[in-house]
């Protein structure tokens, strides 16, 4: 909520601007403090003052209140940000996209917003200059839930360009909510990747002393400079402790918790590597190694693809249209990859009419198998492509990308069941 028009008028008449020191005389009490931005959840008649003690309090402006400006704010000098200097060290490109890893408090809403420039971010982590020569830039600054194909393409093109231009790798600070989608998109888009592309985020915003942004960022730089890996990966805290980060393959990673530092987990795979915050990087499985040559950004994607989570009672009349109108549909089915029998019929019809349908499992862990139950066999007959142990989100991204690369039905099927970027695995470990 914003100010009521009455309070807005009173503030305007007094010429009060945020940052000015105000005296509010209200019902026999004087309150003096610096005018803070109105909080979205504040009462519309309340002005928020920062008292001399540092506390903010809300003061109700009534019909009898008097409000005067005691002191106009002085234009605050912006503190010059010392550019991090890692001259002579390996070049690492930081491509800012927004998100918690680069954020500050927005007084308009009182919430945390992505706003620091990538340069500001690096300036707050001067240690990074001991690791590499940082080249920071902001591609855009958006909430990760607003990320779309166009953003993925811009990131992929920029990453390919910087690597081809001599960078040892790219760090992509990213909002955590959709980081798994972006990492999958970049994994498919970046062909012949010769250097690592590391997505990093923070589950605690960088305006807090307990932020995980700094350790994740530094670890990303170290992973790029100190290893010979050349994949698209997500690097985040491995546990709740500030001790290690896990490096996850971009197609196998998923945000599995709303708020914990170790929200990101590799599903149906182990992380590629572990970075110890106090030194040392340990690889936990095979990975793609560096090579020479040019990275090619193949960024075409079919946007008319849907990702559907099957649930009991899913309305056929609502989703039949989605099935028919989309070029591709990925289902997160139940169990081994099932949907209701009437949905199977709708799918059969849609496939017949040209829609590509891929089945994954909402269990996330484990692979789909359409041979075990009737329902699954019916899906195969209906022409559904089994998504193996791909995450539903990864299958969605992959289908968009595959449909962007080819119109040939057989080629689409072949590509979907072929492991292209580590998204499909043949075996899953017991532990």
């Amino acid at each position, binding site marked *: 909520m914003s100010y009521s028009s009455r309070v807005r008028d009173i503030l305007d008449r007094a010429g009060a601007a945020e940052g000015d020191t105000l005296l509010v005389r209200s019902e026999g009490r004087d309150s003096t403090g610096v005018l803070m931005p109105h909080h979205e959840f504040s009462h519309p008649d309340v002005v*928020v003052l920062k008292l001399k003690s*540092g506390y903010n*309090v809300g003061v109700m402006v009534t019909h009898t209140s008097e409000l005067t400006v005691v002191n106009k704010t002085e234009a605050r000098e912006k*503190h010059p940000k010392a550019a991090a200097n890692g001259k002579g060290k390996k070049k690492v490109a930081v491509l800012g996209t927004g998100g918690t890893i680069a954020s500050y408090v927005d007084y308009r809403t009182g919430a945390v917003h992505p706003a620091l420039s990538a340069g500001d971010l690096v300036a707050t982590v001067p240690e990074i200059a001991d690791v590499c020569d940082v080249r920071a830039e902001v591609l855009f600054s958006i909430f990760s839930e607003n990320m779309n194909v166009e953003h993925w393409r811009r990131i992929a093109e920029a990453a390919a360009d910087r690597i081809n231009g001599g960078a040892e790798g790219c760090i992509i600070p990213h909002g955590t909510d959709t980081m798994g989608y972006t990492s999958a998109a970049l994994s498919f888009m970046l062909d012949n990747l010769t250097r690592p592309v590391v997505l990093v985020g923070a589950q605690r915003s960088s305006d807090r002393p307990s932020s995980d942004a*700094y350790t994740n960022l530094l670890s990303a730089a170290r992973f790029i400079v100190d290893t010979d890996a050349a994949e698209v990966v997500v690097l985040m805290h491995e546990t709740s*402790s500030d001790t290690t980060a896990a490096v996850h393959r971009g197609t196998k990673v998923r945000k599995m918790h709303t*708020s914990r530092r170790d929200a990101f987990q590799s599903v149906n795979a182990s992380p590629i590597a572990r970075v110890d915050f106090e030194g040392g990087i340990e690889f936990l499985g095979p990975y793609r190694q560096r090579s020479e040559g040019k990275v090619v950004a193949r960024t075409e994607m079919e946007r008319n693809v849907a990702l559907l989570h099957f649930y009991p009672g899913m309305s056929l009349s609502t989703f039949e249209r989605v099935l028919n109108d989309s070029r591709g549909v990925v289902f997160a089915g139940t169990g081994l990859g099932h949907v209701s029998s009437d949905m199977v019929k709708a799918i059969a019809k849609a496939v017949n009419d040209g829609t590509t349908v891929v089945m994954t499992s909402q269990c996330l862990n484990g692979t789909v198998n359409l041979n075990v139950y009737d329902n699954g066999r019916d899906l195969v007959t209906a022409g559904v492509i089994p998504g193996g142990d791909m995450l539903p989100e990864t299958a969605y991204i992959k289908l968009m990308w595959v449909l962007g690369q080819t119109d040939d039905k057989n080629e689409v099927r072949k590509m979907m069941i072929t492991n292209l970027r580590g998204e499909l695995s043949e075996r899953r470990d017991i532990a």
Partner: protein
Amino acid sequence: MSEHELTCGLEIHQQLDTRKLFCDCRTVLVDEEGSNFLRRLRPTQSELGEIDRAALVQAEKKLRFRYQAPPDSSCLVDADEEPPHAANADAMDIVLTFAAMLDARPVDEVHFMRKLVVDGSNTTGFQRTAMIAMDGKLEVNGRMISVPTFCLEEDAARKVDAKAGEVTYRLDRLGIPLIEVATGPELHTPEEVKEAAQRLGSMMRATRRVKRGIGTIREDVNISIPGGARVEIKGVQELRLLPLYVEKEVERQRSLLRIRDILRERDVTRKDAEIRDLSEFFAPCPSKVIAGALKKGGKALGAALPGFAGLLRSPDAKLRLGAEMAQYARAKGVAGIFHSDELPAYGIDQGYVDKLRELMELGPQDAFVLCADEPRRAEAALRAAIGRAYDALGGVPEETRDPLPDGASAYSRPLPGAARMYPETDVPPITVGAERMQRIRENLPELTDVRIARIASEYGIHGQQARQLVHDGWDDLFEEVAKSKELAGAAARTLLSTLPELERQGVDMSKLDEEALREVFSALSAGRFAKEAVPDILALRARGKSVDQAVKELGISMVSSDEATAIVARVVNERETFVREKGKGAVGPLMGVVMSELKGKLDGKAASELLRKEIERLLST
């Protein structure tokens, strides 16, 4: 306006008896460690673009923090792994209630802030706190003093261990709601400080919603004398020591002013200290501290302090700038420093002292200071110590100090600036409506003195007993169980004498919670046993026995009046000669025999009545 010899302000932090402020954990301290995790903190920029000086000092220590997370008493919110929930409305009501009792005015809308604290005691790196009310007043010794602020904040985690480079905290205490009230700087004697603390404490307890016992209330006292500076002694737990802390701080500030005057007389000015590497010089020295540091690859560093001789520690020990310097040095992580006023000692003999003075070209009024440790740490510590020495030119530095058990205090960190607050954006603001305040004003608690007087008269117990019940926090339970005058007396005795007596005897009191006491009183009230049996019942109850089992084990289920009459008659008849000899005077001597025969199956009054009747019956035959 006459200048006071002493000016103090008091700040009290009292735990509230609710769930945690920003989550639904219980607020009980536990012995269990639970799982643990490791964190680091980093100071960040405040909204004004400045980093707080206190936060920076803490961060320089580059510590790691280990957190123990006992289940039930901590959750993801405490671990800084989940955003805070809405502020506990109960806790807010308690602060509003207390504020209303002191005639303060609530703010129109409450905004929670983040106060930067990077010593690890908060997993977030900040403490959440909000101003709830302002401008209260309190009568102390017949004088009104101002109580300008009433805040609601979260308690910090409990430090359970500290070793080199790692501090361990337990999360059970983190997030317990605290009411924080501050008086104006209007207290002028040590006793007045204590009186104010007592008044505030007793009024808080009157809300009946605050926690009791050691550690649930902590006092900070701000102390300054004319020419001195504001020094805050933070976290005093024992109220009775408050006057002592004040007295000792006054003494300390006076001695610092004396040191300042001497330095000025000697024309000492601040100089950049030249730190010298004395490792080679000290290589053959038998001092354990120095040899130990050198052996571990450390260095022995030293610097001159021209004009400071005799001020670091005067022969009468009244001037002790060296102790202040050592506290600053320790804040950098070293074990301590040596200075010339305390040498020769610690394995550094006069020969070394003389040679060192010669090497450093020191005159008789000059002092020196040494530190041996890992080179970077030693240098940081030495610079801090020297910086503190020259600060003496300005008299008393503003600082936060930790209380020591003997009434003295030690340097902890600089006083925090106001810059270390910024909005807690995860907690929405709360409008304090007129209806809420009306409800609170209509339900203000009974004040302590009124309550004591009422309990004494209503239940017919002694005023002193009533005061003690209220003081010890038994008054609620007492009122609940004291259903008759008879029971009131028994309850008061049990709560005030029997329980402490059992504890002295080493009985495990943990099983004698209010629920257990309630059960025992209810059985007593039902006539299951006599009040004389209460101590034995409680002792068995403490060992985990139920009241039924205890009664059975003691064989003290009440006797019927026929049975009792038969027993008493037998006792009397067996002693016929004695009874006839003593006449009615036999009641007293035989009472003990009767009670032991009855084994608590009949209460004393009834037994005595019965005994009297039986004796009269015998005498009349």
